Each structure stands twice: as structure tokens, then as C-alpha cells.
């Protein structure tokens, strides 16, 4: 007897009522879109589940943030679960780092169709259709031991495992190559969640997939965000990524080879015309990065110039008719072609002018300018702030962890370009 076709939705990091970070100044309407982005994404997920009549829905970690103690998030989740319950769709939840099991236990009013895996490696839950088990869903950590692999042969039910990317580190770190968990996944479908980007590893007899976060919460999370509609049958596993987030961040890097403002404006406009929003997207935050030699890009490190460039983008392309767009422009100087470093000064009179580029080269060549600043070094720098009234050691450590050395180095490079590069 052939195995029936199984369909479900796999979502991770829903981050219900968790505000996006690193947003530029927004209008009231834009701000409202950003605030309600997680709710809109959840609604989109539920509507898709009802429309497709899926067998179940997987929430793989990060569904909400326990620290926020958000009532709104609990209500949204309850509402979604009830709608799915009315349609007979079960919801399997894997607690994550931000929504630990204790937080889920506190939500005691959830409908009965919600199954939360408070513990890993527990008993798998059977999914029935017409009084017949068509799949089993469980939660498990990664293990290379073959003993943990589910047996799936012939006409048995499909096996689905939930896990967190943090608990399956070796899978993605090794890029799948040679790891037994990838070559022979322990289930037909391993649904990963946690903090990771969208990724898929296809093994010989199964698939490991992470749909990526539902929302672009940080500035570095560019691109389409949503969930994955999975369909499994005897032929294999088909995955379809469905956009759900109304908020989208994009980073467009333009290589500056000409310091003429008009040329950059034309390039930006052309790139803008090529962008295409998804139907559910309502707000785009486009970060334009003008990269190039310091002498070329330093001209654009000016508010007035940036404002002119923003204005030069003019009206939105037709594809963005219903989408609000917010543009931010920054420069990314890089060393490019190295200028000849002059010989060190030999005590010549100060009136002797050394090329500024030489200073710039020396500046860029300094170790700190590379991404060598580690957390302890950053903490040393931030020690100056210890006199601030609202700063304590814990806060400083937290800030030091949050500071991105790459971003700090880029900012320092921008300063170097500002100080030393001579405009062409």
C-alpha cells in the first residue's frame, strides 16, 4: 500500500511581538507595519495552512521572546492555534533559546491541538489521517550515532524530527560534507530552528532544512523571509519557500569607480528598478553601500550629498506601488589598489609635504583597522563609559558582546577615508 502524501508547514523564529532592531527613522505608517510585522507573518502562515489543508504546522524555536512577557504574543499565538484547531490542524512546537519550555508551560490555555516538546529525545507523536498513522513527529538533538536514526522502510509512516541549529552545529559548520547526519539524516525530514539563516542539506534518505527566521529582525538579515511549505511523498521531499514577512531589508552594494554624483545616482536608480518585492511585503528598508577607494567614496560621506542621492531616486518603480521604501546610504571604503608607500621621512623639514595617501595607507595598515578587535579589546575601549550613571559592568559586557567588530572596523575605515583620502 503506497504511503499517502504528507504536507506541513515548517517555520522558525516567529519572534511574535519582538520588535525589529536597527531601523532608521520611520513615519507613523511605516512604524506600524514594522510593529505588526510578526503578527502579519503569523496570519499569513495560518491562512496558508488553512488554504493548503496541511497536516500539521511546526514551530521550530524562537516563537516568542520570554523576556518580553508579551501578552500580545500569547494572544496572537492562541488565536492562531484555535483557528488551526478548528480546521483540525495540529501544531508541534519546539521551544528555543528565547522561548524555553518553562515559558511554554506558562501558556496553559493553549488549545489541545498544540503539542510542545518540552524535552528532547522523548516519545514521538503520531499524526493520524483516517484513523491511520501517516507520520510521527519528535524532537531530537543531533547525534552521529547510527543508533538514533529512525528506521523508515516501505509503507511505514513518515518521520519528522524537530531540532535547533545550535544543537546541530556540526551539520552546517561542515557544510554537510562527510557528516553522517547529513549523509544519512535520522528522519525523512529534519526541521531545524534557532538562530540561523535559511539552509537545506539533502541527504541520501532525508532532508535537513532550516527555513530561516520569519522576520528580518536585525540589519544583517537581508532578503526574503517567511516559512517553508513541505510536501513529502514516496518520490521525496518538496520544499517551497513562502514569503510571509511584510518587512524586508535589502543591502545593495554599489562599486564606486567615478566620484561623479550623477553617475552614482544613475546606478542607484538602475539597481532600484531591478528590485522586486513579494506580494506580502509592505515596507522595504534598502541600505545602499557605496564601496570603493577612499578617495572616491569619501565625497559621499556627507549628509547633504546623501540627501541628494536619496532625492535622485525619485518616485518608486511600479513594482513598489504598494510598498513603502526607506533608503539609507553609507560608504564602505576599501583599500583597493595600493598606492606606492613613500619612504619614511628622514627628518626632513615639516614643510615637506608627504602624500596624504601614504598616511591613509599607514592608517589602513594598522592592525586595529583589520577586524582584529576581539571582545576584550572592545570592552577595554568601552571602559571609558564606566562613569556613565546607567552603565555597570554587566551592561558594558553586554554592549561589548553586541558590538560588531566588523562594523566598528568599517566605521574606523570610514573615518580614515574622511581624514586622509584626497578627493579625486
Amino acid at each position, binding site marked *: 500500500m503506497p504511503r499517502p502524501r504528507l504536507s506541513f508547514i515548517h517555520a522558525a523564529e516567529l519572534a511574535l511581538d519582538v520588535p525589529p532592531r*536597527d*531601523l532608521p527613522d520611520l513615519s507613523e505608517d511605516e512604524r506600524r507595519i514594522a510593529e505588526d510585522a510578526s503578527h502579519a507573518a503569523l496570519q499569513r502562515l495560518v491562512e496558508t495552512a488553512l488554504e493548503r489543508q496541511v497536516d500539521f504546522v511546526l514551530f521550530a524555536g524562537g516563537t516568542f521572546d520570554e523576556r518580553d*512577557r508579551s501578552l500580545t504574543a500569547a494572544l496572537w499565538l492562541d488565536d492562531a492555534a484555535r483557528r488551526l484547531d478548528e480546521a483540525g490542524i495540529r501544531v508541534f512546537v519546539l521551544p528555543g533559546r528565547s522561548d524555553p519550555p518553562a515559558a511554554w508551560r506558562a501558556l496553559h490555555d493553549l488549545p489541545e491541538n498544540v503539542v510542545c516538546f518540552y524535552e528532547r529525545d522523548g516519545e514521538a507523536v503520531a499524526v493520524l489521517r483516517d484513523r491511520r498513522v501517516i507520520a510521527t513527529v519528535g524532537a531530537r538533538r543531533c547525534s552521529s550515532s547510527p543508533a538514533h536514526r529512525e528506521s523508515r522502510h516501505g509503507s511505514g509512516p513518515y518521520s519528522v524530527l524537530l531540532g535547533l541549529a545550535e544543537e546541530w552545529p556540526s551539520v552546517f559548520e561542515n557544510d554537510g560534507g562527510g557528516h553522517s547526519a547529513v549523509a544519512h539524516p535520522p528522519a525523512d525530514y529534519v526541521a531545524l530552528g534557532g538562530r540561523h539563516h535559511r539552509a537545506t542539506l539533502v541527504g541520501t534518505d532525508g532532508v535537513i532544512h532550516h527555513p530561516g527566521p520569519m522576520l528580518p529582525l536585525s540589519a544583517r538579515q537581508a532578503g526574503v523571509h517567511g516559512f517553508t511549505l513541505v510536501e513529502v511523498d514516496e518520490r521525496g521531499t518538496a520544499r517551497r519557500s513562502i514569503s510571509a514577512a511584510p518587512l524586508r531589508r535589502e543591502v545593495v552594494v554599489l562599486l564606486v569607480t567615478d566620484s561623479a554624483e550623477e553617475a552614482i545616482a544613475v546606478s542607484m536608480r538602475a539597481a532600484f528598478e531591478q528590485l522586486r518585492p513579494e506580494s506580502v511585503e509592505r515596507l522595504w528598508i534598502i541600505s545602499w553601500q557605496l564601496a570603493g577607494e577612499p578617495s572616491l567614496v569619501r565625497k559621499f560621506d556627507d549628509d547633504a550629498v546623501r540627501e541628494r542621492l536619496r532625492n535622485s531616486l525619485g518616485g518608486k518603480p511600479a513594482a513598489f506601488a504598494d510598498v513603502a521604501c526607506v533608503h539609507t546610504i553609507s560608504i564602505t571604503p576599501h583599500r583597493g589598489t595600493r598606492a606606492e608607500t613613500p619612504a619614511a*621621512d628622514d627628518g626632513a623639514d615639516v614643510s*615637506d609635504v608627504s602624500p596624504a595617501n601614504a598616511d591613509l595607507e599607514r592608517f589602513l595598515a594598522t592592525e586595529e583597522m583589520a577586524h582584529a578587535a576581539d571582545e576584550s579589546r572592545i570592552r577595554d*575601549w568601552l571602559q571609558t563609559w564606566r*562613569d556613565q550613571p546607567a552603565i555597570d559592568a554587566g551592561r558594558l559586557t553586554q*554592549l561589548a558582546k553586541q558590538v560588531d567588530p566588523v562594523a*566598528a572596523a568599517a566605521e574606523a575605515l*570610514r573615518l580614515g577615508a574622511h581624514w586622509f583620502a584626497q578627493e579625486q
Partner: protein
Amino acid sequence: MKITDIHIDRFGVWNDLHLELRSSGLSTFYGPNEAGKTTLLKFIRGVLFGFAPAPEHSRSEPAQSTGQLGALTIEHGGRLCEIRRASDGRGRGLVTVAGDGAAAGDDLLADTLQGADEALYEKVFAVGLAELQELATLEGDAVAKHIYGLSLGPRGRRLLAIGEDLDRRRKRIVGDDGRSGRLARLLARDAELAAKLNEFESQGEDHRRLVDETAQWEELIAELRSRQTGYHSQLRGHVYLERVHPPWRQVRQYEDELERIPVVETFPERGLERLNKLDEELDSLSRCRDTLRAEAQNFRRQIEALRGDMKLATERSAVEGLVAQRQWFGETRARSVANEQRLTEVSATLAGQLECLGGEWTAERLDKIDAGPAVQARMVDVARRYRAALSRRKRLRRRCERIGGVCRKSAAAIRAKLEATGGGTIEEARAVLGRRLSELDEFRTLNARADALKQEASDARRELFKSDEHTGLPRWVSGVLAAFVVVGAAFAVTGLVAGATSSVLAGLAYLFIGATCGISAWALKGHFADQGRLRHESLEDRLRTAETELRHTHHAIERLAQGDAELVSGDIAEKLQACAEQLAEFDRLERRYRRMQARRRRWHNLRKQLPDVQRQLVEQRGQWCGLLAQLGLPETPRVDEAFATWCRVAEAVETRREQSALSDKVREDRRRLADFARRIDETARRLERPLKEPEDRTAVLDGWAAELERLEAARAQVRSLRRDEKERRREARQYDRQIDRLETERSALLVRGGASGREEFEQRSQWHSRRRDCLELLELVRDELETAARTEPDLAIVEEDLLAFDAEANAESMAAINLELEDLERELHEAHETLGSLKQRLRELESDRRASRLRFERAQVQSKLCRLAEQWCAACAAGDAVDRLRSAYERTCQPATLATASRYLDGLTGGRYRNVWCPLGERALRVDGPGGRALTVAELSNGTREQLFLAVRLAVVERLAEQGVELPMVLDDVLVNFDQRRTEAAVETLLAFAEQGRQVLFFTCHLHLAHLFESRGHAAVWLPSHGEALEGRRAG
């Protein structure tokens, strides 16, 4: 520039000192304390840049003792020249430069110094131990620019600007005070948002609590509703019983009553009603008939009472005629009385007017007078002409009198003025005064001239006296002449010696120069002597001229004074002022005399016109009197009086006319009134009502009019009463016929009801009616009972319940149940309200997005905080990098002077300190010590600090020499604090420095230093003591 000789005529402790120096290399001067080394240093500086002024207390001493004089012989640009400076102790001194080049004086000195000023020289070239030890001497602008470089250069400026920019960026983040920048603001906002978010922490628990409470209240409401349903069922049973019992009871009552009432078989339909109706109609018709008959009797009696006076009816037309003229009679009689009264008043007025006009005036004379408007106009015209003639004569007379009086007064005043000035005419008095005025003016001019000449003579005499005092040559000319003579003599002697010893030609050349100097001195002396003589002669001529003119002026004054002694006495200005005032007074007098003459001529003309005016007046008076006589008025020349008489006569004429008219009217009215009274009397006699005299006829007529009106009203009323009486009698007959018909019908009805009389008929009718009603009611109650039974089909009721039904007990039960229901309803209402409130709070809580918004805002704040931390780290990293650049720059791109100083310091310290540098943008020296540690000046020992400063000065001197400023360096005991090893190193360094073609003068009071230099081939010059003779002391 190099000094080859020092010659001091007098300066401080030195007098006539002459020192010869080596033109290059180092010269050492040894002398004990107070030997004059520092004085020598000051002398060199003073000759080059000017002597320092003597202290204030020494200026009062004689110039000879404080004077400063001396010279330096220098070699500059391959030429020798002497710089000599002389000062009397009060100024910087006068410098003279004598050399063999074309340039001379200040130009040569400036060229020699190459722009070096005194400050630079003092701080760099000529220093003592005190200057060497002070850092401040190196920090003045003049020196610092040579040490620290002219500018930082583009790179240095850029690095400095970057440092400032970094500071600004950091301050923007943390603020000027480290606690008020963007960071503080963000942290404060974050804390504020966190505090606000804390308020929402219990939102979940609140929600859960509200949900639980809502469920509890919903359970309570369900229980209350169940109880309410039970009570409603009980109440329905009681209500049903209450509703069914009354009809059931009525059915039973109607059935019992029907059994008691007898049966009446036949009875006319509505018999009792018809009988009652017939009786009522009979009573009504009888009452109407009786009323009509009574009214007809009443009308007959009224007609009889209205019959009145028959005589008046017979004479009715005559009486009506008299009554119609009643108003005319009254008016005529009143007017007649008024006219008689007016006639009496007018007659009295006329009598008064006649009496006022005089006894000769009577009514008849008034009738003859014509008082019309034409006569009056004519009288006015004649009176106007007469008055004009009178006023013309009066005006002419008045003007003659006024002008004559003014002329007389003016003549008297002029005569009085002339007599006051001595008689004669105005012209004579004026000529005398003019002559006096010219004399006074001439006297004043001569006096002023004499004063001016006296002053001029005095000035000339004083200048002459001064020129006598200064006949000698000026002091500076004498000095120059003396110099020329000395130089000439020197050249002459030199020429003689040269001619005798070496060369005749050279001797002749020297003699020629000496002669030239002598001749030049003689010519110069002659030039200044001629100038003095010419000036003296000119002053003598000026004095003579002034004295001669003064004498002439005095003679003229004496001549004037002899003629008039009064002229020289008193103030001449006051006299001139008095004369001018008198002259002005004569001018005013002459103008007044001319005005008086013109007025007198006008007076004569007016007097000639007077007779003609008098004649015209006489003619007009004649016409006026003739007119009065013609009008019948008394003659009078007074116009006003004549007009007053005329007015009174006119009024009397008018009164006379009114009196005549009133007399005629009174007579006519009296006649008409008498005729009308006679007609009234005749009518009264016919009515047999004779009048009693003197009865008022008007009252009689009024009484007759009233009687006529009453008679007419009675006649109309009688006619109406007769018509009404006839109508009432006809209607009474119709009612009699209707009463007969109704009585027949009533008898027939009684027979059909089986009764003999009304009482029996009523009893039978009551039985019949009650029986029928009971049957109908019984039917209705049975229907009602069935309807009540159908309202509660699910409830059953038995006969025993109905029999045992107690309405009061049932009502009490219902009231109790209703009370319970009301309590339940109230509880339910409260529960619903509470539940609604809970649900509302739940809805509010669920729709409250404030916490989300706060979290959103806090996330952005924390993002900004993170970005700020990144910017801070970037600034720190960039600052580190810039510090490296700066450090490298400071060590490799120092000013050349400091590089040279490093070399000298290396030599002076024996290689212990090798590098001198200054931080970017600062004027502070740093020395790299052992181990590469940078030391500030303060951190160095005293000796090392002096070695550093000496090295810096040597470097500056070398740097200045490269720029063309080449001056000898004078060091005054600057090595005393050096240890032996460094002293030897310093000596070596100084010798090496001097061997580069520079001149160094080293003064010392330490013998070992002098020996040290001597040991290296530089013998010291031993400065002489101040008592030794000048001869025999030579340097070298």
C-alpha cells in the same frame, strides 16, 4: 660678522680698553669675579643694538662720568668697518659706522646684523648662566620659531586636526563633561523605557486573572438563571389558578339566579322604555303650552302701560322746528355778550391813547389822519437824508479837532528836543556830532598803531640780544670741525711719516687728504659765520624802523590831545558809543518832523470843506419840517421824537376803526335774539305750558327735545308687543292637539303588557329583562373560563383546587415569588455588569499595544546604543592608529633645528641623550632618554637641562648662520655646572662648533676652564685689572 677689535673709551668699569680678537674660532677670556666680563658682554651687545639707558638716579650726574663710548671693529663680507656708539647715558646712543665699503651708517649695520634683533641676540648669541638655565628664554616668539619650526606643515596640521576631530567625535558621544552626550541621552531614554515597560510586566498575569474571574462570573450567572426559571414555573401555576377561579365562580352564581326568577311569556318589546318615553313627552308638551299662554298675558299688560302725552304729539312739528334752532340761539347769544365786552375795552383804550397824544387830539381829528404805508415810507426817506447830513458835519468837525491836536503835540516835542541839544536846527546839531566822531576814531587808530610798534621794537630787540649771545658756531658743527681738524692733522702726520719712511707718493696722498680735511673745516666755519652776521643786520634794520614810526605816532596823538583835552580823558570806546547813539537819535527826530508837516497840510484841507457841509444840512432840515406839517404832526428837528409821535397817532387811528366795527355787530345780534324768544313763547302757550319770566329759553328747548325722544321710543315698543302676543296664542293651540294623541297611545301599551297600571307594568318588565341578562352573562363567563383554561395547556387543575382556592393566600404566594425573582434579577444584573466590566477590561488589555510600542522604541534605542558603541570603538581604533602615525611623525619629522640640537646634545652628554624633539603642535621639548623614554625638560637634571639648552642654542646659531645671520656668540661662564667629563665634552663641542668658521667668545672666571682651553691650543686672554695702564694689554 666677526669682531676683530674691541675698543672701549668708557663703559661701566672699563676705560680706554682695547682688545684684539681672533677673527674666527674660539676666544677665551679669563678674569676673576668683578673683572668686567659681563660688562664686556653688555658692551658688545650695546654697540650692536644700543646701550641700555642708565638708571634714573645716575642721570643727574655729569655726562662725563656716565657717558658710554666705544667701538667694535668688525669684519663682514670681507670688509672691515668700525661700529662706534656714543651715549650720554640717557639714550641708546649714537652709532657711527666707518668702513671701507660704499655703504655706511645704519645701512651697513643693518646689513651686518641681517635682521637679527636684540631679543634674539640676547637669548641665543650672548647668554650667561642665568639665561641658559631658564627655559623661558627659548619660548619667546623670536626664538621659538627657529626651534619649533615655522609651521607644522600640511601633514602636521592634518594630524593635529584629526586629533581635534576625534576629540569632538568623542565629546559628541560622551559630552564635554563625560556625562551629557548622546550616550547619556540614550542611556537615560533606555532606562526610562525600561521603567515604563516594568509597569506592563504583570500584563499576562492580569489577563489570566481576568479570564478566570470572567469564567467564575459566567458560572454564577448560569446558576442564577436556573433558579430564576424555577420561580417562574411556580408563579405561572399561581397565576393560572388566579385567572381561572373568577369565571368558574361566576358560572355557578348565574345558574343559581336563573332558577329564582319567574317566567314572563309575552311582553311588548321595549315596553317599559316606550312607556317612559310617552310619559316624558306628555309632560313636556303640557309645560310648553302653559308657558306660551302666560307670555301672551304679559305682553297685553305692557301695551296698556305704554300709552303717553297727547298734546305734545299734536304740536310735534312746531316743537321740532324750535328744538332744531336751539344751537344757533345759544351761539348767537354768547357772541353778542363777547362783542359788548370787547367794545367796552376798545373804547377805554382809545380814550387812553388820545390822552397820551395831548388835549388837542380828538376822535374826529383821528378820523382825518392818513396813516398808510406810503406816507410812512415818504417820512422815512426824508428822515434818512436829514440824518446823513447831520452825521457828515459831525465827522468833519471831529477829524479837524483830532489832527490839529496831534500837530500841536508833535511840534512841542520836537522843539523840546532841539532846545536840549543847544538850539538850532537838526542839520546843525548833526554836523557837530559827525566831526566829534571822526576825531575819536583817529585817536583810537593812532593808539593801536603805537602799541603794535612798541611790541615790534621789543621783539626785534630781544632777537638781536639772542643773536648776540649765539655768535659762536653750533656745538655739533664745532665737533665736526674738530674731527675734521684732527683727522686732517692725523693724515698730514701720517703722510709725513709715510713720505719719510716708505713712499713719497703715499705721503703726498696722505698730506692731500689732510689738507682737504682742513680746507673743508675752514669752509664750513665760514659758511656758518656769514649766516649769523646777515641775520644780525636784518634785525637791527627792523628795530630802527619800528622806533621811527613809533615817534611819529606819538606826535600825532599829542596834536589831537592839544586840541581837545576831553579827548584823552575817559574811555574812548564809550565815547564812540555815545556819539553813535546821539546820531541815531537825530535821525529819528528828523523823521518825526516830516510826519508832523504832512499832518498839518491835511488839517488845512479839512477845514476848507466845513462850510459846504453846513449848507447841505440846512436844506435837509427844511424838507423834514415841511413834511411833518403836511401830515398834521407837530414840527420838530428831532427825527426820533417825530417818529415816536407818528407811531402813537397810527395806533390811535387803528383803535378808532375797531371801535366803530364792534358797535355795528352788537346792534344786529340783539335784534335776532328778540325775534326767536317771541316764537318760543307762542308755542308754549299752545302746549298749555306758559313760561315764567325770566325762565331760560334754552332750558325749555332742551326739555322739549327730551320729551320728543321718549315719545318716539314708546310708539315703536307698542308695535312690537302686539306682534308677539298674537304669535304665542297660535302656538298654544298646536300643543293642545299633540297632547290628545299621546294619551291614546299610552293606554294601548298598558293593555299589551298585561298590566293595569304603571307599577304593575314595571314589575313584569323587570322580571323579563333580568332573566334574559342572566342567560347572556352565563354564556360569556363560560367562554371566559374556556379561554383561561387554554392559556396554560400544560397545567392541569381539579375542582377541589378551585373549591379550596383562597385569593389572598394565592396573592401572598405570588408576591413572595415575585420578590425572589426581583432579587434574582438584581443579582443577575449585577453579575452581568461585573461580567461586562471584566470583559471590557479584558478587551482593553488584549488591545493594549503600549507595551509593544515601548518595546519597539526600546529596541531602536538599544540599536542606537549599539551603533554608538561601534562608533566609539571605531573612534578608539582610529585614535590608536592616528597616535601611531603621530608618534612616527614626531620622531621623524622634527624641525631641522632640533635635529641639529640632537647632534650637539649627543656630543655634550657623551652620547647619553641622543634625540631632542617636540610633540606635534606643542612648544615643549622632549628628550629621548636611556631606553627610549621621552623625558620632559622638568624631568632632566640641572646639568643636563643646561646642556640641552646650550645644544639648542648652538643649533639655532647654526640654523641662523645658514640663513645669513652670522653673529659672534658670547658665552659667559655657562659650563660651571657641568661635571668634569661633560665639561671636557662641552669644550670639545664648542671648539668643534667654532672651527666651522664661527666666532665664539667664552668668558670665564674659572681658571681650570681657561687651562682646559689652553690645553687644546686656545690660550685665554687675561682681562686686566681696572687700575692697570692701558698700554701693554693686548689680546692673543
